[in-house]
């Protein structure tokens, strides 16, 4: 149990998917303008990434490897993700239409979110067992959500107050702010071996 908690802690703080591993940058930059939308996106991603970890792990060890089809990993994983995202889209459209509107194009874009495919592949390269893989998927998604919500908070503040020079407005200042966030998170290194 303790090891699983350490795994989550490591995934959220020490090797944060966005600030440390550079996975999930596009939605991170795109959906972080308001805290509400960021939270909604984060929850959707947690759902997708946890389910992806489960399904891709099972496919890898019960279908791909026994049949010596390891080289089909990329195709199979990304198709699974595309299908899962479609599913999540339909669910959100049914149960939370305003969120569906707010997320707009970024919902189907979860398919191309490096974090989702990334976690599926990382689970295999790290040789995780099923439980570890699912926990890692869940923890990494939480890390993504933490980063994106934190960032939305900062951006909302910046939009209210600061006078940002036109040249750096938009993506550049977002990236520079992320650099500072990432620097702060570097302080967590060594926390979990």
């Amino acid at each position, binding site marked *: 149990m303790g090891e699983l908690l350490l795994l989550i802690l490591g995934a959220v703080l020490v090797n944060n998917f966005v600030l440390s591993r550079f996975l999930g940058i596009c939605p991170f930059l795109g959906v972080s303008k308001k805290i509400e939308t960021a939270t909604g996106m984060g929850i959707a991603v947690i759902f997708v990434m946890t389910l992806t970890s489960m399904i891709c792990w099972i496919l890898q060890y019960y279908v791909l490897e026994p049949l010596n089809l390891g080289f*089909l990993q990329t195709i199979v994983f990304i198709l699974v993700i595309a299908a899962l995202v479609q599913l999540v889209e339909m669910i959100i459209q049914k149960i939370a239409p305003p969120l569906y509107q707010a997320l707009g194009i970024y919902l189907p874009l979860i398919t191309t979110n490096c974090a989702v495919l990334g976690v599926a592949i990382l689970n295999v390269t790290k040789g995780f067992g099923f439980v570890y893989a699912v926990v890692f998927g869940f923890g990494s998604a939480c890390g993504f959500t933490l980063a994106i919500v934190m960032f939305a908070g900062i951006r909302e503040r910046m939009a209210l107050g600061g006078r940002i020079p036109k040249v750096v407005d938009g993506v550049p200042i977002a990236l520079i702010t992320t650099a500072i966030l990432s620097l702060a998170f570097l302080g967590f290194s060594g926390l979990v*071996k």
Partner: protein
Amino acid sequence: MNETGKNSLRNIIVLTAITVVAAFALAITYRVTEEKINDSARLEALKSVKAVLPKDAKGNPLYANDPDKLAFEMKITEDQKQVDPILVFYPGLSDKGEVIGFAVKVTSKIGYGGDIQMMIGMTPKGEILDIQILSMNETPGLGTKVSEPSFKDQFTGKSLETGAKFVLKKDDSSNYDLDAASGATISSRAITYAVHRVVTFYEAHKSEIMTKGSGNTTNPVNPALNR
């Protein structure tokens, strides 16, 4: 079949056809590259073995065999957590079948960022020839300094036989023979401890290791394989 039915069927057919063609193309590519892929990991490991075993003045390896084909493992039986108990020995043999050196793969578990995997080259007398860091997760620019010659080369030529202690100045300023890399005490300690472990293990089990290393004479020794 109505319009939507025909459409759905067409969608499924086209998508399936593309997927099947893709899978086919990949299977062919995999067949073509499979052997090279399996070889590449092995060759990469062999490179570090070659780097630490005895070489002549021009840098050509002096051994005449395929060290990884004769590799064997030994286990540290004492209870200790600083080094992974499995040590892998890669013997280098002359063309007459005599042991001219060992490359030993050892994993330190006390690096700052986790495991540090190393390849240590030593002569049959237990003298250190060279050290290669295979993988590490140390702080870039600080802990990673242990892979630089200024730190590593301190070990070359040391052996228990000639009285080396393998102790860092930081750990015993009155009785030391090694300097830690500046700003990298923990990483330096990890390396030093691992090297010390290996040489003491070798000293204690020398005859067994030498016997295993020269192997039985039915093992093929291929003088042409000096990659």
